[in-house]
């Protein structure tokens, strides 16, 4: 049986570089070796693309210079569709603006290489927190009250920006519009701290989202897997703050051999009712469709378990660890999740190939005459 050449793309010029390396490593280690020939594609911190079998070894990254790695072969991806490409299908494991915001997706579209998705528009839209807010709001999803501004506006008219934030009511969260994970996010509870916090967050982006704090809620994450016509939501998880968890781990590791047992940072399933679970899952699927997603994504919510109200935080189009732990808890093993992602990539490419991309026209001929 011919193995598919599966390109696993990870790294990139982003503050989430290391997290992406972990996601890529996990995925390569769990892909079925009988089905795939893995082609690791590593983008270093300067944006150089590399390949080589050594990239499959997690030990390599413990000592490698991530700005200028050694022992690798440069990799060029030709956007020409007729060219021979180093892999037949790709799974993107990027986190952050370099590979999650539509750029690499665009390159793969040009090259005609199937990948899990979402496409350029879905990736770019969902990556920008301000645009995400507008899209979710226009579709009627409940979310935190928010406002936004640019650093240019702030420098030109600081008082006006501060007044706009005060009107929202403190505490607020300041978020770089294109930031990843929690990097650059600041919580501000006092007006006197606001200007300095804005200056710090402004180091990460020119556009800043300001969100009012939501109270009496717990954070819930749901992963969604599929492609239009066959979309599933995972069991929800509640991420556990590290401080809460460490206290417990400390308690339970007295016996010595328990390390590894108490290493989870999440509650799966989340401690919410079956009815609220169904509501969150339905909402997650609606958001998946709204952003024209495919592949596997994770959507973060705040929920009020008492009132069963749901606030959307944001979709993550390439979730950390591909949210495999949520799919394992939902009955899909990581190897099968990878198979499904490859299947989705092929389905997505096939659907696009069936679209009409040219039609008979004599416009050029007419222009010449």
């Amino acid at each position: 049986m011919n193995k598919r050449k599966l390109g696993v793309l990870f790294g990139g010029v982003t503050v989430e570089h290391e997290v992406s390396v972990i996601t890529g490593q996990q995925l390569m280690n769990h892909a079925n070796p009988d089905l795939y020939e893995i082609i690791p594609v590593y983008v270093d911190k300067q944006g150089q693309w590399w390949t080589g079998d050594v990239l499959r070894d997690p030990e390599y990254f413990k000592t490698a210079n991530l700005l200028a790695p050694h022992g690798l072969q440069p990799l060029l991806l030709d956007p020409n569709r007729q060219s021979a490409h180093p892999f037949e299908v790709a799974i993107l494991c990027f986190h952050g603006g370099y590979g999650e915001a539509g750029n690499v997706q665009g390159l793969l579209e040009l090259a005609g290489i199937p990948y899990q998705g979402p496409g350029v528009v879905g990736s770019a839209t969902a990556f920008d927190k301000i645009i995400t807010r507008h899209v979710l709001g226009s579709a009627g999803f409940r979310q935190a009250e928010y406002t936004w501004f640019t650093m240019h506006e702030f420098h030109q008219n600081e008082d006006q920006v501060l007044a706009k934030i005060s009107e929202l009511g403190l505490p607020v969260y300041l978020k770089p519009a294109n930031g990843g994970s929690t990097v650059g996010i600041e919580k501000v509870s006092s007006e006197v701290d606001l200007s300095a916090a804005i200056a710090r967050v402004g180091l990460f982006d020119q556009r800043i989202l300001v969100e009012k704090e939501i109270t009496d809620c717990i954070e819930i994450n749901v992963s969604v897997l599929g492609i239009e016509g066959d979309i599933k939501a995972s069991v929800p998880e509640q991420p556990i703050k590290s401080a809460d968890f460490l206290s417990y781990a400390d308690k339970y590791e007295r016996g010595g051999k328990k390390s590894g047992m108490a290493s989870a940072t999440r509650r799966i399933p989340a401690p919410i009712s079956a009815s609220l679970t169904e509501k969150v899952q339905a909402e997650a699927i609606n958001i998946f469709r709204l952003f024209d997603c495919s592949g596997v994504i994770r959507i973060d919510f705040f929920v009020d378990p008492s009132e069963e109200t749901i606030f959307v935080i944001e979709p993550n189009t390439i979730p950390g660890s591909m949210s495999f732990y949520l799919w394992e808890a939902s009955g899909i093993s990581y190897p099968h999740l990878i198979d499904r992602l490859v299947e989705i990539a092929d389905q997505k490419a096939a659907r696009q190939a069936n679209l009409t991309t040219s039609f008979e026209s004599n416009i050029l001929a007419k222009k010449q005459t």
Partner: protein
Amino acid sequence: MKLPTTTLLTILQQSEYDLHKTKSWMTEHQVATPTLEPENWTPKLKVIRLLFILLGSQWWSLELAVRLTQPIEWLIRRRVYGKAQARLLQLKKSGAQCVIIAGSFAKTSTKAWLAHLLAGECSVAATPKSINTMLGIAHWILDEVPADTKVLLIELGEYRPGDLKELLHFIQPSYGILTPIGLQHLEMFGSLESITHEFRSVIEWFANHHAISHLISTDHNHHLFAQHFPQLKYFGDQPASTWRLLESSVTKAGTEAEVAIPEKQHLFTPILGAHQVINGLPAFWLATELQLQPEQIKKRFATMPYIHRRHEPTFAANNVLILDNSYNTNATAIDSSLAILKDLKPTRSFVITLGFTETGEQMHTLHHQLGAKLAQQIDYLGLAEAPWSTDIVAGWQQGGGNPEHLVIAPTIDTAFAELQPWVIPGSVILFEGGYQEVYVRSGKDTHE
């Protein structure tokens, strides 16, 4: 005397300074002598330690040290009680209602439930942790209860016959809740009859002072009181209950329940176990009595925080769930734990336990039954060594438990360490009981 001083003083404190009980424990633990550390080095304990060492560190030194502290303690207590009663009166004049919670077990859980459920509707103060003696309660009233408190939840402890009557006289409560009465304190009271008699004094107190309608009991106690107190109201899962759990199902997310409060409603709580939902039901009764909104109480079920060491879950890696029910266990409570394990449908089920404490003469029978019960319902058993371990092992064997799935080790921790190679993804590990007596090893304060 071979026991380390700290261990001896820990046992003395845990036995409420009962020299007879301390001596019995010493006799039983002459061979295996774990070093225990007192949970709280109170001034009284420090004074006893000092006197004990100064007097030569013999058994008679301890007896004398305890006796020497008694008159001073009596004087201090009188003064504290008087001041606490005055403060309590002041709080009651401002509209505060005192709700007492008494029973052999589930008192602290019930208190935690009520504190959370009522807190959305009014200001609630509850005695912290398992503080339930008159001195502890008095200090709490004096030092910790805010002036604007509308509901005081007070857990009552019973260590000697007459304790409850004394506490009721001291608190003069408006409302009361009786949790299950069982074999928890056999060593202190000698028989179930004596235990029941002690709790009957609570009902009699309410009957004499207010009305029995100000008291509610779990239906676990129905057979004990139905004949003599037919007007007593119940909560639980039996037909005798007005506030009743009708159906429930437990998953790792929590417990879904159909309840009659008294009208039929659906509830969800993240807390695991039908018995825990039952612990929350008296809140609906209190809501009616105190004219609070039952709808708000129902909603707060969904945000109930986990209760420390009462089936407290840790969601570990590889979908392994650790349930910490180490606070306490007994012959009745183990059934609730096993029901949770069954509902969770683990790939493999583990129980790590010391067994029951305070079982008196029934020690051998109850532990034999425990072993047999565990053999039929779980896959692996880890035992911390105790005088009754052989009874549990015999029960395990008789119940058909796999001998290779049983380990006995010096402590809970080492028992778990030995079982750990058998843990697979999806396993559930239950730590059941034993916390109070054996855990903390401190080491070197050995006294010859």
